[in-house]
């Protein structure tokens, strides 16, 4: 009897864990993702200091931050590392011989409609969600992307807001009085009350 009850509990827990695993966004948090070209944000954004928006051009104007067209890569790589074997897929794709298929690192479910532009406009920094991308040789995910994680900020955005001038600063650290600053910024940015931010229709439709 006792064994049966324990067994049942174990089965239930295992089932829940299996289910959590199955609904967790892939790839896993912290796991670097294999890409056709081992693109390094650390090298480009960190070492070379290229602004995020040089490649992710629509991050301020569109829901989608934008994946750069290969012509963007070729602005430099038609001059630099022109015969590096690592870049062979890039050159072949640009010449129209194959398709370059990047693997998504941040893949939200299809019923979630995240909009980059409004977060940027309201003082949510890149690194708040994407972490220190400028230190990642291969990009990996730092946030769970669960709804709970989204709501954590939508309920109290003042915990994460920063001045607009710091949005693209990958090194930005929250000051000790973040809540005071956040409240001030929230008023300046005219951010909707949390009743709006936590409405289902804000992200789902």
């Amino acid at each position: 009897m006792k064994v049966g009850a324990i067994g049942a509990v174990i089965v239930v827990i295992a089932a829940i864990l299996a289910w959590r695993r199955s609904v967790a966004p892939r790839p896993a948090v912290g796991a670097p993702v294999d890409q056709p070209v081992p693109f390094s944000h650390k090298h480009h954004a960190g070492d070379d200091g290229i602004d995020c928006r040089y490649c992710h051009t629509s991050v301020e104007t569109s829901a989608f931050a934008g994946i750069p067209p290969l012509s963007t890569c070729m602005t430099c790589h038609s001059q630099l590392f022109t015969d590096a074997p690592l870049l062979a897929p890039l050159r072949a794709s640009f010449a129209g011989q194959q398709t370059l298929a990047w693997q998504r690192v941040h893949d939200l479910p299809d019923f979630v409609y995240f909009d980059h532009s409004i977060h940027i406009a309201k003082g949510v920094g890149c690194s708040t969600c994407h972490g220190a991308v400028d230190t990642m040789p291969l990009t990996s995910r730092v946030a769970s992307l669960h709804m709970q994680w989204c709501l954590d900020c939508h309920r109290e955005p003042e915990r994460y807001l920063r001045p607009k001038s710091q949005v693209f600063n990958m090194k930005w650290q929250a000051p000790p009085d973040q809540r005071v600053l956040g409240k001030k910024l929230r008023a300046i940015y005219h951010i909707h009350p949390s009743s709006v931010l936590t409405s289902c229709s804000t992200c789902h439709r």
Partner: protein
Amino acid sequence: MLDLPPIVDRRSFMKLMSASIALAGGACTRAPLEPIVPYARQPEGMVQGEPLFFATALTRGGYAHGVLVESNMGRPTKIEGNPAHPASLGSTGPLEQGRILELWDPDRSRVIQHLGQIDSWENLASLIRSRGQRWQADGGEGLRILAGGVSSPTLLAQWRLLLEKYPRARIHHYEPVNRDNVYAGARASFGRPLEPVYHFDRARVIVSLEADFLGGLPGHVRYARDFSRGRRPEARSMNRLYVVECMPSITGAAADHRLARRSSEIHSLALRLAAATTGPVSADALPWVRSAAADLQQHHGASLVLAGDEQPPEVHALAHHLNEVLGNRGATVDFIALPVTTAQSNRDSLAQLVEDMRHGRVDTLLILGGNPLYDSPVDAGFAEALRSASVSIHFGLHHNETSRHCTWHVPAAHELETWSDATAYDGTVTIQQPLIAPLYGGRPVHEMLAALTGDFDSTAHSLVRNYWMGVFGNQQPEERWANCLRSGVVSESTARYENTQAAKAVVGDAGATAAVGTVPDPKEIELAFRPDPTLWDGRYANVAWLQELPKPMTQLTWDNAAFMSDALAQQLQVTNEDVVELEVGNRTLRAPVWVVPHHAEHALTLYLGSGRTAAGPVGTGHGVNAFALRTQNAPWFAGGVKVRKLNERYRLATVQSHHRLEGRPIIRAGTLADYLHDPQFARQESDRRAASLYPDVPRAEYAWGMSIDLASCIGCGACTIACQAENNIPTVGKSEVIAGRELHWIRVDRYEDAAAGAQRTLFQPVPCMQCEHAPCELVCPVEASVHDAEGINVQVYNRCVGTRFCSNNCPYKVRRFNFLSYSKEDAQSAALHNPEVTVRMRGVMEKCNYCLQRVVRGRISADRDDRALRDGEVVTACQAVCPTQAIVFGDLNDPHSEVRAAKGSSRTYTLLGELNTRPRTTYLARVVNPATGRDPSEDGGER
């Protein structure tokens, strides 16, 4: 109690169940990884994730309708009207909305076929080359082209080139729904065929002799806008519409006085109307004639008489005469040179071609679009004659009835896949631009025709562009070309009004001519043919949206039927869905019966366009083929029909089975006189906002609301299909519609009821009412039905477990349930879907959410700029498409918003207000404008 033997024993049951659970668990795999494929070079002007809109035009029968097509990352997904185009003014009809599904239709033909085998363009090209040498020698003897109505200036230039090269070649035209009568009528009056252009906004009295100007005539979307502008009771004066027709149409339903007559009787009625208008009104005239004549006499220069395509040329001539006498020419009607190049008589043009083919004078026939084997007159003998052409090339979107009997079939590019140009009802020209490269290897019509003249290299783009560069000359041609593409209109291309001589006096002596019109035997049953409101002549049969869009006057989907009045049904002792055999001449056709209120007695109507045998998996085998009874001499109505009841039933799929209001104030209506006497006439006791135990909805920055004006709504159904296109709503098929499972988020209810003193057809679009105290929300066990802060009742698909309690508790029945997996998952459907809207799965409830994706898009774009949303910045799909602007949507918190103004009207009422659900969607009462001093019961008798 029954003692049933167990089907499986307990042990096997446990085994089965555990196996299924294990399998179900195994099937629960993780979502697939989705790669992102970057552009090599990003197209200019594109912002990733943001839609682009391109101005182009869609044609039917040659007549262009200007549209803006939404393109999401290169995929055309939605058609909107082009505000800059005179035929559209930002709206479309229901048929234009369906054209996007036609583009993506996976059943379109994909390969060139020769005698049923896959063949190549090279082989066809070499055949054309070898024939071309012969044509060069004999001047194109034996070369024939059969086309529909053509309004493309580039194509016409190519034709001139072809005829210069091969002077003995001939071009024929055949449109099954043609305007032969209109052109013949104009020729009788003015000596040459001209196209009438009407100005309904300037007409105070309109008399329609079976002209369906709200649903069928070229320019009908614009006409609906102009007509409804004159019907705002707030202006304290309204236009008045008189309609006489056989089969009820949406124009008839909009009429203030409607008379039901067989089509053949309308000529004599028109003569009597002319006599009464130009002379003294005889006392024994019909009240309809008396009243219309009196109104016409009082509105010189501000009235309009128009005749329908179905009416013989004499009736058109009579209408021209009346407009001339009443001083309406130049005021409410103008004439332009034909914007569409077609035969002066489609019937004769086709007959000539058949004659030539029979006598072996045709060796090569090119059929440009169209489907004459299906839709030509049954006695024209096209099918037999076609066999005598040694080479017949069918060029079209589908491998259809005709292409199966041609030696060659060439897939055509869709209008949204090619460069071309087209002319609208008023002569305005649009340069059509492609939204996407041909999906199925279709060939542009210009390239097909160029090939005939030996030009195998020119592209459609170069042909169209070169033509227009020639037109623009050296006056900034590049800028003008770019401007034309951006605006969707070639500037200053609208046709000049022709200076017509006074119409010939076809009514000389009013008294004497009144007797001329022949009145058929009153007991003889007449059969009328009408274009289908959603399938037209059958060309859209494979478009599932249009098959499932309820036809406005019958609420039928997926079928046509023999429509008749209740009186005739009783006389024939038949009821709905009984099958009858119709006999005209020596031809017979079996069709199910459908009783349509207000249909002319002793007449039957069949919609054309059903009963296709090779339309594709969607369109084949629905309804009966009315073309089987349509002859050259009786294209629109045929007398002497014998009807025999068969001992057979046929199930029809209707979306509404009850059409009486039963005394409930669901639709409120009054006359203009009522309104002027008491603007609050529509108010009722139940409208008072009662106290409620439920807490008030908290107020946010915006409070969304909608107002629907029933005085403007014409019931065309464009909102239903626009919503379907915008919100990824799947079709469900005939059997599911019969089961009541259609998914339209906004339906147009039709009622036949006494309104404003007379029996009238009443329309009411019903989307979700977005109740502030929503009954659906209280019963959902999983909070899938909840309110957002701005007052939209949202459905959270991921929470929904499909109890359907919400639908049971919804008094408006606007919630729709996915009983099965209706959404298709093929590549075409995925590409067509609006990326901003979730595709729902089986077991999920769905409903209107005020186009949430548009609201959010608007709000984000305003917030990004740190400003408030402007009124009119967020437009729902139904509002955008509505030809009469009956739907107004906006922010109720904004005191200056249009929707606040609409809701402030004294005509505002809430649907089922007594339930105190406090809907955010409200209605404006319908107002009609019957002639004063008339006994309203007369209308009942007339109808």
